[in-house]
């Protein structure tokens, strides 16, 4: 019981204070672990998700359509042509530092590209990959 309270407090504290990619990743990982015991985020699975071809949207069949095959590089919006700052932390230190912004884009882009909302596990994996890729 004590352990549960500790975990709940930890989750709550990361939820309100999350401001590093590590904290944001932990928040999603904790959410995933609640559904799937023993879950740990995997950058490798995150990369698979990033490169997976969903083909739900013609112009945006996968993440790389806009973010390019190398997430450390700047991307380009495939429809409007607007340049997009690198999505990987190594290319853009502002990435994954604002939890509300991160969640907003997971909702928007998962619906558009994956065709559904992403799971907490997928989000944790994705943040792990984007934090670690060089």
């Amino acid at each position: 019981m004590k352990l549960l309270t500790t975990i709940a407090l930890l989750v709550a504290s990361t939820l309100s204070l999350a401001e590093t990619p590590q904290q944001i990743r932990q928040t999603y990982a904790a959410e995933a672990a609640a559904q799937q015991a023993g879950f740990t985020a995997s950058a490798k699975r995150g990369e698979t998700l990033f490169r997976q071809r969903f083909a739900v949207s013609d112009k945006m069949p996968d993440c790389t359509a806009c973010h390019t095959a190398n997430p450390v590089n700047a991307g380009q919006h495939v429809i409007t042509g607007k340049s997009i700052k690198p999505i990987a932390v190594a290319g853009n230190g502002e990435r994954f530092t604002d939890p509300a912004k991160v969640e907003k884009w997971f909702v928007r882009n998962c619906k558009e590209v994956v065709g559904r909302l992403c799971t907490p596990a997928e989000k944790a994996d994705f943040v792990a990959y984007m934090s670690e890729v060089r």
Partner: protein
Amino acid sequence: MKRLTLIALLGLALPAFADRMPLPANTPASFKTECASCHLAYPPALLASKDWQTLMGGLKDHFGSDAAVDAKTAQEIGDFLSSNAGSPSKLGNAGNPPRITQTARFVRKHDEVPAKLWRDPRVKSAANCEACHRNAASGSFSERDLVLPELKR
């Protein structure tokens, strides 16, 4: 002579003023975070108020993308767009859904742009102002700021 030069310079500068549309100082942050993530923060003067309202009412299917925002943000952005919107008589009909690129003003201003250039991969879309108007993000659409070499040929 000096005076003539001054008048000539003024004459050159005047048309440029009409092509300067910087965002107003009171532009809400939400306009930039919600609208300008996927495309340029288009100057509100490029569409009439009625057309902005039509666009804001259909964000769930915004040219194929779900760009919906919460009610409070929609109100804030909608009010901002309407109060800085352009004159319907100068812009002309924007179609339905309204497109900046369909207004008579846009078409007239771009009538010398060859079709080939619109299809250039560096341009991608007429929505991509910055492909040619390098300083569009700061509101400059002056002909002197054009960058694609094809235009200068």
